[in-house]
């Protein structure tokens, strides 16, 4: 797998700098704007995820990078070269399609060799077998795609793309059709292959766990725009919009008003339904006094309301347990917090501490450093899914 590529058919490869640059790209289908003035820079060599719910424009963006759609406005550049007007069959980009799109009339080997043959490469057979080795399917080279399982087809599709050594590899929700265990396996496989081959992967998915597991950088998309971009941990711990806070994992968001600045301005005191909650100023992206205070469910500790112990430095709210669900790894509580609404709390199952039954009065405590604040104009439910939502 390691080795120089053929000089004859070496595609444009970025050695340093950005692999992909999308500038002010808009795509409209009639009056529907799928991608809205999007600007994105994907650094070369890593695993990049484009994450968002259905209909947010991520697949359309991917297709514009592949050349299968033309932007209504804006430019797409690969390794510094403007390819907006270059048709798909002349771009050094390959795609793994959601439906795999394996050619039914060709066997596995010929499928993988397809791109090589079109470019007139040498040693086609050997290179195709090499790619099949990479995905551990060389023994199925003579089969037809219809005889393969979903997971195998997916790997063949990957081999078919990777064998061409593109500057950029695009993956359009490739794991969507696989069952859970297989999906997990393939996630790790894809990571391994990307590290081994070194090509920039751009992975489009609506599964936030998948994005966080696999990617070095994640861009969260919503309604045709990028909400936030960064490393998974960064996005998770420092969300900047309610959508990101709710879409990645779960958040408890509640409205409040900034009433004071303490500790020399490094901490904000926020009034939440009569209780004072401390928020580090560095974790607030609010522009005015109206804020949306947030804390992740796993950061909260539940204590019986009348229990004596408690860290005085903690933020504390009180409420009544409404629902208790045991999931094996953790216990998930729904707590009706006084004057605020419903909070979710995840208690890891370490065997310590009593389980709080529904109806019991409890104290929700968490360290202030885990609190973040969003702009007060945000919607509390942005990024969540309700029963009435259109799938």
């Amino acid at each position: 797998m390691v080795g120089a590529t053929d000089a004859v058919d070496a595609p444009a490869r970025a050695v340093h700098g950005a692999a992909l640059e999308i500038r002010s790209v808009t795509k409209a289908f009639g009056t529907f704007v799928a991608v809205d003035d999007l600007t994105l820079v994907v650094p070369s060599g890593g695993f990049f995820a484009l994450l968002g719910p259905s209909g947010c424009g991520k697949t359309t963006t991917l297709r514009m990078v592949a050349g299968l759609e033309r932007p209504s406005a804006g430019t797409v550049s690969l390794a510094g070269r403007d390819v907006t007007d270059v048709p798909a069959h002349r771009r050094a980009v390959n795609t793994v399609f959601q439906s795999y799109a394996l050619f039914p009339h060709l066997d596995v080997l010929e499928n993988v060799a397809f791109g090589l043959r079109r470019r007139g490469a040498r040693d086609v057979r050997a290179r195709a077998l090499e790619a099949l080795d990479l995905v551990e399917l060389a023994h199925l080279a003579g089969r037809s795609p219809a005889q393969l399982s979903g997971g195998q087809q997916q790997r063949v599709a990957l081999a078919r793309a990777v064998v061409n050594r593109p500057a950029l590899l695009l993956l359009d929700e490739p794991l969507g059709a696989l069952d859970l265990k297989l999906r997990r396996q393939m996630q790790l496989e894809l990571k391994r292959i990307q590290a081994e081959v070194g090509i920039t992967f751009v992975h489009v998915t609506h599964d936030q766990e998948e994005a966080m597991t696999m990617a070095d950088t994640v861009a969260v998309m919503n309604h045709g725009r990028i909400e936030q971009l960064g490393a998974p941990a960064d996005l998770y711990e420092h969300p900047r919009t309610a959508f990101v806070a709710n879409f990645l994992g779960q958040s408890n968001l509640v409205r409040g008003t900034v009433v004071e600045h303490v500790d020399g301005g490094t901490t904000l005191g926020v009034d939440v339904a009569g209780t004072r909650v401390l928020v580090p100023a560095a974790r607030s992206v609010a522009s005015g006094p109206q804020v949306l205070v947030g804390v992740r469910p796993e950061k909260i500790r539940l204590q019986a309301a009348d229990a004596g112990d408690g860290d005085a430095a903690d933020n504390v709210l009180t409420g009544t347990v409404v629902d208790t669900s045991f999931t094996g790894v953790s216990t998930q509580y729904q707590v009706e917090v006084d004057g605020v609404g419903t909070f979710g709390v995840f208690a890891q199952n370490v065997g310590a501490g009593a389980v709080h039954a529904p109806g019991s009065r409890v104290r929700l405590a968490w360290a202030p450093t885990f609190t973040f604040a969003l702009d007060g104009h945000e919607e509390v439910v942005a990024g969540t899914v309700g029963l009435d939502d259109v799938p």
Partner: protein
Amino acid sequence: MSRLRLGGAVVPVFATLGFVFLLVPIAYTVLFSFNDGGKINLVWRGFTLDAWRNPCGAPRVCSALVGSLQVGLLSTLVATVLGTLLAVALVRGRFRGRSAVNLLVFLPMATPEVVLGAALVSQFLSLRLPLGFGTVVLAHVMFCLSFVVVAVKARVATLDPALEQAAADLYASPWQAFWKVTFPLLLPGIAAAALLAFSLSFDDFIVTSFTSGGFTTFPEFVYVSATRGIPPQANVISSAMFVLALLGVVVVQVVSRARRRR
């Protein structure tokens, strides 16, 4: 309970009558190919294999047959090529005027053959084109085209568009994508369309009679002979074609089923 069973039998009974109705004239045709009725062949006189042993015995039977075959093959070829291109463009392309083209393709099918024939022959006459083999082929291609488009369109619609996109993604120019991916997958549909075109052309009478001038096709020969008496050789040829076609269809069915099972 018994009413249900009786009701359940009604439909198959009617259907069987329908099939009988459908097959009686064919049985008659086949039967009379064995008739010892001389050139007129109207009344059953006795069983003989004479006509089968000498299928070209009657004058002009075989030349008419050859004429039909030539016209059929050439028209099928041209109509299939043009029709396939049209079908692909209509299903895959996104352009204004698509519904206009669809209408244009549909109109010949909605036009009675007399009108088509009259229109074509007016055109040929005004251009002072001599009526014959050439004009017949031109006419046949025209009315076969629509049927080919419809048949191939149905097949193209079942083709996953992602396949052609994948081909483009893998460096195939539109031309290469068509030949390496689209065409092989369309082949069964194209073959069926070609078969349809051939049978339409071979059996056509009305348009042919308008546009053929002195050139004779098999249906024309039969029609003209109808008043004088159709020679049993015509029955022989018709029966032979029937059996051949039947065998062909059966073979294709068996082969495709065997391939699917593998």
